[in-house]
Structure formats: structure tokens, C-alpha cells
């Protein structure tokens, strides 16, 4: 960023601090002190104990005794539920990428000129994005009962919020001149969007969809913990039975699948953009 700085003038506000270095120093010291004080207070409140951590690491054998040897008997059920998790992610990502098309158009201020519609859509999407995925899962599992359906709905809502933000921003940054030219030569709104906006945003749209699929794989593991099916449910069961060997096996499986899917999706995204 520093190379982009314009030449400062003496009246420029950003130049003023250089004239009085003590002010900058005092400001930085003050910020630093606030950070440290807040850190000490938070550490005290949350009971951070570095002794405990160091003791924990020196007693690593105790932890590894709990987590190892890993229990390979759980591998079969783990693979089955893993596929369930992947299916959940695929279905949720598919539906959210379909639904996000109209939503992102409504939430882009160069397409939706109606102030009220634009702001309402954005507000709803912003609120949706603040709700953690697990909380969504808790609510939908409560509504639909334990099982994959609640999980899929939760993932759908969760990824809709993320996608709507990313894609409406892409639509907003699209070049509007082709659209204007089309409108001028008599295209209707749908035609102008289909031939003027869609070709411009399609690569990003595909890339973001894959990105959301990646996020959904990870999120579907997590929401399984609250009873939304998939490998997360298996993990939570084994965790509550203190069956740590099995927990470690499942964590290894999750780790492997997340790495593999991220790698594949990364390669595809590189090829698209």
C-alpha cells in the first residue's frame, strides 16, 4: 500500500503526524497499552494458564495415551458417514447456488434500482451471515428432527448468506456499459442480464460456488456434532463416550478428505479463472 501513496502536502492531514513524531509515538504506545491491558484482563477472565499448557506439552504422553492407538474398527462406519457428509454438502451447495442467482441480483445496486428491495435483501443476508452454522443446525434439527434433512437446510441457509455477499459484490463490479447498450437497442431486462451481466460474472460465480462447496464440506462435519447426520454425529457420539481412539481416527479421516477436496477444488478454480 505504501507505494500507492500520493505525494503529501503540508496541509494534508496524513502529513501532520510526521511533523510531531512524539504524537505518533504516544498514540502507538497508547494503543499498544490498551491491547496489552485487554489481553491481561481477558487471560485472567478465561483462566489462561501457561503453566498448564507447558505442563500439558511435557505430559504429551498422557494425551497421546488417550488419543492413540487409533481405533481402526471405526473406519468402516466412518467412511459411510463421510459419504453422507459429502452428499449433504453437494445438495446444499447445489440448491444455494441456484437460489443465490435471483437473490444476488436483488442485492446488487446496479441491477436493483429500487432502494427498498435492495436494502431489505442485503439486511436479511447480513443477518443470516452472522448466525454461526452450528446454531442454524441446532434450530433446523430442532424443527425437522435428527437426521440429514435439518443439516442440509442449515447448510443451505449458511452458504446462501456467504454466496449472496460474494456474488452480489461481483455483479456490482461488472461493467454496465454492455447492459446500457443492450437496453438502448431494445433488449428487455432479462435479456440484458442474461447477455450483458452473466458472461461477465460467470467465471467468478463458478469459482465461488466451488469455494462454498469447500466451506460446506467443513461445515457439514461441524454441524454433524449437533445431530445433523454425517461424520460429525459419529464423532460426537464417540467423543461423548470418551472413546478417544475412535475420535482420533475420525479426525484423521476428516483431515484427509478436507485436504483432498480443497486440492481438487483449488485446481478446478485455477483452471476456470
Amino acid at each position, binding site marked *: 500500500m505504501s507505494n500507492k501513496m500520493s505525494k503529501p502536502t503540508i496541509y494534508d492531514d496524513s502529513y501532520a503526524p510526521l511533523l510531531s513524531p512524539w504524537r505518533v509515538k504516544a498514540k502507538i504506545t497508547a494503543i499498544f497499552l490498551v491491547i496489552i491491558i485487554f489481553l491481561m484482563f481477558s487471560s485472567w477472565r478465561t483462566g489462561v494458564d501457561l503453566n498448564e499448557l507447558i505442563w500439558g506439552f511435557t505430559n504429551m504422553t498422557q494425551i497421546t495415551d488417550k488419543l492413540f492407538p487409533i481405533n481402526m474398527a471405526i473406519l468402516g462406519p466412518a467412511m459411510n458417514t463421510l459419504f453422507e457428509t459429502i452428499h449433504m454438502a453437494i*445438495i446444499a451447495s*447445489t440448491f444455494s447456488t441456484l437460489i443465490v442467482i435471483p437473490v444476488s441480483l436483488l442485492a446488487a445496486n446496479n441491477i436493483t434500482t429500487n432502494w427498498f428491495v435492495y436494502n431489505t435483501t442485503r439486511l436479511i443476508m447480513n443477518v443470516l451471515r452472522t*448466525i454461526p452454522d452450528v446454531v442454524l443446525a441446532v434450530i433446523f434439527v430442532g*424443527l425437522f428432527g435428527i437426521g440429514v434433512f435439518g443439516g442440509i437446510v442449515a447448510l443451505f441457509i449458511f452458504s446462501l448468506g456467504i454466496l449472496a455477499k460474494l456474488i452480489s459484490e461481483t455483479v456490482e463490479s461488472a461493467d454496465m456499459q454492455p447492459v446500457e447498450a443492450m437496453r438502448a437497442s431494445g433488449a428487455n431486462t432479462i435479456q440484458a442480464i442474461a447477455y450483458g451481466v452473466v458472461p461477465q460474472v460467470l467465471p467468478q460465480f463458478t469459482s465461488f460456488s466451488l469455494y462454498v462447496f469447500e466451506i460446506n464440506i467443513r461445515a457439514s462435519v461441524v454441524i454433524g456434532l449437533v445431530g445433523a447426520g454425517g461424520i460429525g454425529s459419529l464423532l460426537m457420539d464417540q467423543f461423548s463416550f470418551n472413546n478417544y481412539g475412535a475420535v482420533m481416527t475420525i479426525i484423521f479421516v476428516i483431515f484427509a478428505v478436507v485436504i483432498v477436496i480443497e486440492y481438487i477444488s483449488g485446481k478446478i478454480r485455477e483452471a476456470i479463472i
Partner: protein
Amino acid sequence: MSQPLPPKKPRSTKQIVRNFAICIAIIALYVWTFASINIDFGRVIERLSSNFDRVIPQLFSPNWDRAPEVIEMMIETIFIAYVGSLAAAIIAVPLGFLAAFNMTNSRFLATFGKWILSGVRAFPEIILAILFVVAVGPTPFAGILAIAIGSTGMLGKLYAEVLESIDMNVVEAMQANGANKIQIMFHGIIPQVIPEFLSYAIYRFEIDVRASTILGYVGAGGIGTMIFFAQSGRNWSDMGMILLVIIIVVTVIDYASTYIRKRIV
């Protein structure tokens, strides 16, 4: 409408075969997905009709009596996120330098650093929280460790990208003038990266607040503990209160962080 369209670009056979193969693969993926997922729609609808009247009205009438307790737990959550992301912001600096090719000048070290960082990023925070609850017991401290380790992966990657995009002319000029490594570090590199490092650290704090709201679900402290009890007690008006507090706090922190980041960069 009678004007002829411009001729279409000719496609090579290879391209056609490739597109066909991709289509087949995608269709196969969907067939596999929809064939093997088993959703009992009868039960879903039955559940929905019996639960809807109970869950939804209660969710939208938060239990205000629990507000002080919920707010106190939310403050603990923010503390967990704060300590965790501050620790991560510091741990990620050496890892970022390791993973930045122009800092180490070694393909091997840079790739090694990137592998460590993506390995760390593959763990969802709550899985790390489970590991740390096993290791240090069910305390907020386990949550802090989970947030610290979980954020290191992303922050390290972003730091490495910032470092790779700095102006190396400054570093070269300093080297030519006989500056040693430490001088180059403090006068050539750090001034260039500090604003972006800070901005990313604050951005990560924003994500961590969201992530740490759920850590309590596995016993790692914060408001997640209350989510767990509200769920197991089917206490939906408590859940509504928790949700309301989470939405407000996360929104406020988002706005504050966006404001601060705009000022820094």
C-alpha cells in the same frame, strides 16, 4: 430478428470430448448423491408439523430473564476470540516468513511452510477444540488454544501472500548499502507489511468471534455451553435470546472491524 448471427467458433474434437466427459462426471456425481442420500420425507413433515408451533414462536420471543447470563457468556466468548486471535497473529508471523518464497529464497522451505499452513487450515476449529478439551480439560483455555491454532493457518497464508508482494527494491538497496539481516528486517520489510498484517489480524478476530460462539458446545467455554444446554433442554426461548445476542455482537464487531481496517490500510 432476421439478421444472421455471427458464425460460431469451431470446436476441436478434444474439447468436445472433454466437455462431454465433464458432463458425464457431474451427472454421475448427482445420481450417486441423490440415490444414496436417505431422507425420510414422511418423518420430516411429521416432525415439522409437530415442532413448528413449538419452536418458531418461542424462538422469536426471547427469554429476557436470561439476558444477563447470556451477555456474560458472550463477553467470555469475545475474550476467548481475542486472546486466541492475538496469539495466532503472533505465531503466524514466523510461519508467514517461512512460507514466503522471497524471504527464505528456498523453494523447499517455502513449500514446506505452505504445507504446514494448509495442514493446519484443514482442521475446523471445533475439531481442534475437541482435541484440546481432551488435552487440557473442559475450560475456556482449551477454546483459546483451538482458536489460536485454527487461525494460524489462515493468517500465516495471508501473511505469506503479503510478504511475497512487497517491494523488494527497498531490500536490495539496503543490502547494497551494507545493511545486515536484522536491519533489513526492521527498516525494509516490516514497515511495508505492518498495515496489512494488522488488517488481516483484525479481520481474523472478526471470524474468530463467530467461530468461538460454538466452541462451548464441546466444553471449550463461552456461549456455546448455553447453546448445548438450550438444545438438550429444548428451551427455544433461551435459544432465541442467545441468537439475538450473537447476532447483535457479531454485527457490531463486523462494523467496528471494517471501520478500523479502512483506517489502517
